[in-house]
């Protein structure tokens, strides 16, 4: 019982610290100076450099989804719904979640490791002595860039995922290309696309914020950096999945 109480208190303390960290990060949005060069560099790192991994993930997932739906649909003569389900599945769910998880693996880990290393090597202290707030210089640009870049990455991921389904559908499963595209376009609604992009922005915010948080609070030495990196990826992935559930509930609950 005591152990449960202790764990609960520790969890509440972490939630409180994370809430303060989030508030501090957001407060820098309205407190100049902003560092446009840092924001630009973070946009390049998080957005542009993630495109290949996002594209490949979405392409293979879209293709596999088409195969699964076709095989499953064949059990009750519903093979024709492949274009519609691929589109809905990619845009509403798989696109944002898979891109979010890939970003957690690629970006959260890199942010956590970079900032933790900076902390261990006293670069964070050096920033402070050079009259530069580390939250403003390191955290805000990364969080802002990830929040802005992720909807674009998710949009690209959705499109490439649908393309993967199209290639498999028309190349292997015998769908007519024109019909496939028409069915995809007719079935998707603005609401689906909007939910996808909003999920992207929220997942990007989570991925970068958690990376920065673990980096800034890392322990000493190589072990501290390793723990921060591992903890950041796990926490970001779990939070992204939890946020996905809540956002799906908010957008699509009837």
């Amino acid at each position, binding site marked *: 019982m005591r152990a449960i109480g202790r764990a609960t208190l520790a969890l509440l303390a972490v939630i409180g610290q994370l809430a303060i960290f989030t508030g501090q990060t957001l407060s820098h949005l309205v407190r100049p100076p902003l560092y446009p060069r840092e924001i630009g560099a973070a946009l390049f790192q998080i957005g542009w450099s993630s495109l290949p991994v996002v594209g490949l993930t979405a392409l293979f997932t879209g293709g596999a989804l088409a195969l699964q739906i076709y095989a499953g649909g064949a059990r009750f003569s519903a093979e024709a719904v492949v274009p519609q389900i691929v589109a809905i599945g990619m845009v509403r769910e798989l696109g944002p979640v898979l891109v979010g998880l890939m970003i957690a693996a690629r970006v959260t880990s890199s942010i956590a490791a970079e900032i933790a290393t900076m902390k261990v*090597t*006293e670069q964070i*202290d050096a920033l402070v002595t050079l*009259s530069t707030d580390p939250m403003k210089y390191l955290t805000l640009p990364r969080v802002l860039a990830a929040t802005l870049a992720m909807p674009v990455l998710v949009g690209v991921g959705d499109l490439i995922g649908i393309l993967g389904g199209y290639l498999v559908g028309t190349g292997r499963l015998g769908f007519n290309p024109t019909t496939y595209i028409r069915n995809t376009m007719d079935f998707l609604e603005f609401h689906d696309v909007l939910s996808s992009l909003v999920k992207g922005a929220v997942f990007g915010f989570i991925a970068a914020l958690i990376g920065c948080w673990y980096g800034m609070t890392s322990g000493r030495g190589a072990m501290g950096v390793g723990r921060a990196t591992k903890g950041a990826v796990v926490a970001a992935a779990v939070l992204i999945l939890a946020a996905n559930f809540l956002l799906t509930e908010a957008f699509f609950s009837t």
Partner: protein
Amino acid sequence: MIELTGVEKSFGDNHVLRGIDLTVERGTSLVVIGGSGTGKSVLLKCILGLIPPDRGVITVDGQDVATGDRDAFLARFGMLFQGSALFDSLPVWQNVAFRLLRGALRRPRGEAREIAIEKLRRVGLGAEVADRLPGELSGGMQKRVGLARAIAADPPIIFFDEPTAGLDPILARVINDLIREIVVDMKATAITITHDMGSVRAIADRVAMLHGGRLRWTGTRAEMDDTADPYVTQFIHGSATGPIETLR
């Protein structure tokens, strides 16, 4: 002038500083010696406000570290970190000119670069290193870049944290001489933390020894050589026997 009165700092049960009273007059070069884990680095970070002390008052030229305009306060300091703490992603000149590229001391980019190159020359590095990344430099060169960054904005107070750690004896001598030269030229107030007695002899006007979280001894460099304090004599002679306990 830097004044510390009754400064205490603990991390959990570890009492690192136990009531430090210390005054560093303007233009003086103070070297703080002491074994590993005696709180030397914590002392520096408390003065800079990076770590808030649990008790006590620290003032710099009359301004309490804990109050007032933080940017204006920090603009008076330059610091050379133990591992240089250069920013890996920035070229050397932007590391040196970091303070001049943003904030209250901001200069046009071209001018900041010129100042950075001038400071690099001051520490014995040519303009050819300006566009290289810190990772491409040797440890000694990184130390010099860190030194150039510390003096880039001509601060009246400079801190040196283990300036010769990890350097060979010859390079350590070069860095010590360079620090002395810079501190004298700039008429700066300097606090250096070191285990290296070569640094003490090259840099110090005054010496202070920390032991067990307390200020064990203070005096001039000449007084240090003549002192009968067993802690100081054991430390400066690097003797394994004496009142300072060592792990065997």
